[in-house]
């Protein structure tokens, strides 16, 4: 759907069957076929234990955090960028949510705070990517100095004033002397990968935060039991992931903004020539996409009941893997939200299935690796060497 407008370099046979239905199939037929095959494999080998309804619910539940984050990441990757720091963003969000709840703020406020954290991170990353390094420096420097001065005798007012002065000075210096210098998102988020974890630890003073009252935010990842039947409806988190995906599909398919993301990913220069405000669009892409990361962070918090600065380590690569298994190209210009969700499911199914089979951790790691490579390999094989390199 998001790919309605996307185009394939048609291999010779494919062109004749260019009808919409087939077209959609070719786009995420691959990943879905993969998912079915892998599921079937475990259903046969692991048996009842694996095919249980409750196990299916578990699989979906465990996909939710990576899945929601990957929905956002799909847009970033379509636009030709990458986010290596999404794991750290998720960890940071669990910390701010926990911190807010711990201070006694309402769950609603904590929820909003979580999404806001994601947006702020996204805005920062976006600003750096489009070259507003000075602006970011001014903001961070101002806040730091302000907080520091505030903690001394000078108090809050002193802090506020000095923070603003530094902010203004840096901005002014920046405007006068510094040209805008765009930096590749790989580098920006490579830096953020460590830095955001640092910030997360700083929020909790090097410790996890365990808020006592978590309200409904704490229940987002719990199934909703139907009476005493023993059955439960999927947790709210599952719906959140689904709604996120639907929203993203709509944005990518039907809005200018979404089409701009594709255009920028396909050829930034052309987008610029065509009057697309690429810098502004990129800023919004990162802000919006990592807002989904904030949402994922809230869900991770609900999953852990804990604000944990070390959580979600390595999720960055899982998220990218999900998007890529789902059919996106790291060179930008193509990708599919539904494919991404399928990609995320594939990874959970492998982890779950391996455990059900009683395989050791290391076997699971090897199998997951092999699946990532084969999934993309197969996809490529179907498409010809399109994504090569």
């Amino acid at each position, binding site marked *: 759907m998001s790919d309605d407008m996307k185009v394939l370099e048609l291999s010779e046979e494919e062109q004749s069957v260019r009808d919409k239905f087939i077209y959609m199939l070719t786009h995420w037929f691959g990943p879905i076929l993969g998912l079915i095959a892998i599921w079937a494999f475990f259903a046969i080998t692991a048996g009842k*234990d694996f095919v249980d309804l409750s196990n299916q619910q*578990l699989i979906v539940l*465990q996909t939710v955090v990576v899945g929601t984050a990957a929905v956002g990441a799909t847009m970033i990757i379509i636009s030709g960028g990458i986010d290596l720091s999404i794991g750290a963003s998720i960890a940071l969000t669990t910390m701010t949510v926990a911190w807010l709840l711990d201070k006694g703020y309402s769950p609603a406020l904590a929820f909003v705070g979580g999404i806001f954290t994601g947006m702020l991170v996204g805005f920062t990353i976006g600003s750096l990517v489009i070259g507003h390094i000075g602006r970011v420096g001014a903001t961070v420097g101002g806040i730091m100095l302000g907080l520091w001065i505030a903690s001394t005798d000078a108090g809050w007012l002193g802090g506020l004033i000095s923070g603003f002065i530094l902010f203004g000075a840096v901005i002014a210096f920046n405007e006068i002397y510094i040209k805008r210098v765009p930096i590749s998102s790989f580098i920006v988020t490579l830096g953020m990968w460590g830095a955001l*974890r640092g910030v997360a*630890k700083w929020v909790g003073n*090097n*410790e*996890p935060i*365990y808020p*006592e009252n978590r309200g409904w935010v704490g229940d987002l*990842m*719990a199934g909703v*039991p139907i009476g005493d039947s023993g059955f439960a409806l999927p947790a709210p988190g599952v719906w959140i992931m689904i709604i996120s995906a639907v929203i993203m599909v709509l944005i990518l398919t039907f809005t200018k903004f979404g089409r701009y993301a594709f255009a920028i990913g396909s050829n930034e220069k052309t987008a610029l020539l065509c009057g697309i405000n690429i810098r502004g669009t990129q800023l919004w892409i990162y802000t919006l996409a990592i807002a989904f990361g904030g949402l994922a962070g809230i869900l*991770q918090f609900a*999953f*852990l*009941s*804990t604000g*944990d*600065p*070390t*959580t*979600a*380590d390595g999720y960055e690569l899982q998220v990218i893997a999900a998007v890529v298994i789902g059919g996106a190209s790291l060179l930008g210009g193509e990708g599919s939200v539904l494919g991404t969700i399928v990609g995320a499911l594939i990874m959970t199914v492998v*982890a*779950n299935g391996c*455990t*059900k089979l009683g395989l*050791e*951790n290391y076997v699971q790691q090897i199998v997951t690796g092999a699946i990532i490579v084969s999934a993309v390999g197969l996809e490529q094989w179907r498409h010809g060497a399109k994504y090569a390199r």
Partner: protein
Amino acid sequence: SDRVDLSDDSMKVQMKLVGKNVVPEKTIITDNKKIKLAVIPKGTTHKYWNSVKAGAEQACKDLGVEMVWKGPLKESDRAGQIVILQQFGTSDDIDGIVIAPLDENALLRPIQHALRMGKPVVLVDSPLNGKPGVDYVSHVATDNVKAGELGAKELLKYMGGPNKVVLMRYLEGSQSTLAREKGFLDVMHNTPGVDILVDNRYGGATSGEVKISALNLIDKIKEADGIYAPNEPSSIGVMLALEQVRLAGKKHFVGGDAALPLLRGLRKGEIDALIVQNPYKMGYEGVKLMVEFLHGKPVPAKINTEVAVVTKENIDSPKIQEFFK
């Protein structure tokens, strides 16, 4: 021989042998103000280490010495801990190092090297595969095998006899918890009728990873009657998983360490008992031993800090509260 106190002389002699005459002259310090210690935890991710830090800081205050605190991020990062140790090892203003080695073998050489550089080392929490008075000064820790045995016995008590149990391990290579897991398994193996459903699953370094591991094992957990986890992240992770599937309070569960959510779980009846250590005291004693040694005083080769079994009933008693600092 572990518990034998070494006399002033024998200690010095042994240190001399290793340190090629570097150690003794330098180690005798008379002025407390000059003393600065480096304290290196296994990781910086758990509440547990902040208790150790609090104890160490208190000791520094009481004794009038200074300290710096720095550790690797994760408790599996051997190279990271060695790097930090080396950095302090070359610092002129560091006089001694208190460390919780995250691997008993990998840290041996770097610790020996630190000694050669004139920095004696006191161990806390976890062991080193070396000799006290030769490779390091002294070791302050829980008797972890015992702690594990205690956990097993508590679990058997609550289950009301032999039954099916699940062990959720912590991390590959972490000696302290491995010892606890061993203690636990020893008792269970020697109790006829016990059926150990799972004993080979390492949960992971954070509670989130453990929760996922536990959920993936949920069939075994449903089948079991009792569960044991050796420390903070593993216990929290198991508790979260039990809550997720609404089994909390329905399974017997003995965990380890005194993090906030575990204490809450204990009060709610989701956890039967916690085997807690005294990290605050480890930190305190570690620093104190180091300072005494630097003054040339005799120090014991090993101090066992005590463990306690915390239950709903005794959780508020002052004696138990001591363990939560």
